[in-house]
């Protein structure tokens, strides 16, 4: 009876090159393995840091406002990305359903990226401006009130819990390392949050929603959702306008 503790794979050639060079020399084996697993990642990832191969920047794409950033943190906290993608693919069926397909340059200030991998619910990349603020309020309170048959959970606590401006400033300070914000913007964040929040609260009041204040979490989330994909749309519109302008100039000559 062969003893598996003791046995090697069947008939290893006694003078096997692999055995002599690698299996007998564990350090060399570890180095060879490290090299083997490094090549693919280096070839694929490093070029993205170059200007020519990396995502093409879009001038219209700017960092999120403090309130939107607070909303984005809530989006991350609640795990919205588990069910909603933010990446419209360049297919007719997708652009019909969602709008313009997503460009790489639109995500420049997405830390972390929130592309998602599963659409248990619809894609949200072109959600900004699609519905009025009150739709989002009602939808987060009870998804079935706006989308009958929806399997999404209700998020009533967003209507009660509040954001803390100091906490948003902490996020902005961390993100300022990557150039998202200046110190002046961080200092002015409480006022900016209040101003943008009041605008949303005002629109909610017009729709007979009276119980919401500017620092409720739902307001920050609405601010973020209404921003989604709008910079990109602006950029694409400008691109079209520029190319049309170029054509007009061309024909005039």
């Amino acid at each position, binding site marked *: 009876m062969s003893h598996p503790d003791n046995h090697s794979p*069947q008939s290893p050639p006694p003078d096997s090159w692999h055995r002599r060079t690698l299996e007998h020399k564990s350090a060399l084996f570890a180095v060879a393995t490290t090299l083997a697993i490094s090549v693919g990642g280096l070839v694929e990832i490093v070029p993205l840091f170059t200007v020519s191969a990396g995502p093409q920047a879009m001038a219209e794409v700017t960092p999120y406002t403090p309130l939107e950033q607070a909303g984005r943190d809530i989006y991350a906290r609640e*795990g919205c990305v588990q069910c909603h993608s933010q*990446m419209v693919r360049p297919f007719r069926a997708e652009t019909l359903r969602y709008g313009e397909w997503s460009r790489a340059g639109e995500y420049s200030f997405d830390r972390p990226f929130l592309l998602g991998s599963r659409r248990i*619910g619809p894609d949200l990349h072109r959600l900004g401006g699609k519905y009025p603020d009150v739709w989002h309020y009602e939808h987060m309170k009870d998804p079935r009130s706006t989308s009958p*048959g929806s399997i999404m959970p209700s998020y009533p606590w967003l209507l009660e819990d509040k954001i803390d401006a100091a906490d948003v400033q902490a996020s902005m300070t961390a993100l300022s390392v990557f150039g998202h914000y200046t110190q002046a913007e961080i200092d002015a964040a409480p006022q900016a949050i209040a101003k943008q929040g009041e605008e949303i609260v005002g629109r909610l009041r017009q729709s007979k929603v009276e119980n919401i204040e500017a620092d409720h979490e739902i307001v920050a989330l609405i601010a973020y959702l209404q921003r989604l994909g709008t910079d990109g749309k602006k950029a694409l519109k400008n691109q079209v306008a520029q190319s049309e302008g170029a054509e007009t100039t061309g024909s005039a000559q």
Partner: protein
Amino acid sequence: MTAESAVVASPRYDDEIVKKFLLATFIWGVVGMLVGVILALQLAWWPANLGLPWTTFGRLRPLHTNAVIFAFTANGLFTGIYYSMQRLLKTRMFNDTLSNIHFWGWQSIIVAAAITLPLGMSQTHEYAELIWPIDLAIAVVWVLFAVNFFGTIAVRKVKHLYVAIWFYMSMVITITVLHVVNNLAMPATLTRSYPVFSGMTDALVQWWYGHNAVGFLLTTPMLGMMYYFLPKAADRPVYSYRLSIIHFWALVFLYIWAGPHHLLYSGLPDWAQTLGMIFSIVLLAPSWGGMLNGLLTLRGAWDRLRSDAVLKFFVVAITFYGMSTFEGPMMSIRAVNALSHYTDWTIGHVHSGALGWVGMSLFAVGYYLVPRLWKRPLHNEGWATAHFWLATIGIVLYVVAMWVSGITQGLMWRAIDDAGQLQYPNFVDTVIKLVPFYWIRLGGGLMYLTGILLMMLNIGLTIAGSSPNQAINPSPAPAK
């Protein structure tokens, strides 16, 4: 001296650490699968979200994936690695204190994950959701494990490294690199941080990590365990030494390239998407090399499948490995991915790997080890066979339900009517259609969960059993 050696049965090997990791594996396995069943129920019946922040799908899903990957699977790998590498290298682990720090450190990390994820503390990177202080703890514990691992190799009493050790080593090295790079972040508070990479670059780094966490946690070390435990259980030598060399190097080299197949049709440059697709397809060859080396090791032992639960679990595990490593490359082809991406097809694919390959392999290793570690026969062999059928039928129900639901939804999303408009413009119509399949999936998951509960009971009663059985001949002193 004689009395002492009689008391200490096998002082050469530290099997106490193996026992700890084994129990942790299946306890966390129950937790991870239970959360999975709750998630399946939530998708079929939304009120199961309970209206509480801590129990919504969005917060619980990372708990499920982290528990299954880092609690169930990783503890299972550590069980198999600590048991087999001592025997393959004919030496005790390098340092018992390191082994214990590894065990308790890892379990503390899991507990921290189980607390923070329902609280909504998440980096949002899939399978890298844990917040930065926990990531630091993972790095420290992992490095201590690596020291113990390479230390054991350094003091080995066998000159050559058996194929299982190659696969373990590829895990120890690669997971270190992936974990560190993908979690590079700037902390804002104790529980929140922002990654150094943004947008598409962050996405590519994450899927380089995400795909290779599958590759180097759920695949290569599992193959290493197959190379140790399958020949032992079948009492047959591994089919081909040459094949093991070729498929090992091909697998570890090729796997790393496949990450971009998670980002097809995204803003990632086309050349990167194409590289991801091509390498994913080529990956089929070394994957099937491993499958064939496993299945052909059983040549001449197929009759023992009838009576041996360990071999039953292994054969189904390896078959699912072959199935999902065929399915994966197919799904990486752009035209197929256009349909499958974002749908339940992906969920089905992941579970044929996780429930089929990983779960069934770990059950095989568990049933192999329990009688040997506790030196008594399994309490009830019939229950092990019942577990096997519960798990196998459960997986089939799960995977088939997800295929049907995934393809159904994918086709509904793209359906265009004669007027050139969307046939199902209301997204929720494509969701309602899936609910029956979500109930079937729940049924499959419940069967799988029942199976592991039966196993836990079997293990518990085996350990509680009083009569050590000499016939098992546990962990024989290795003969030179």
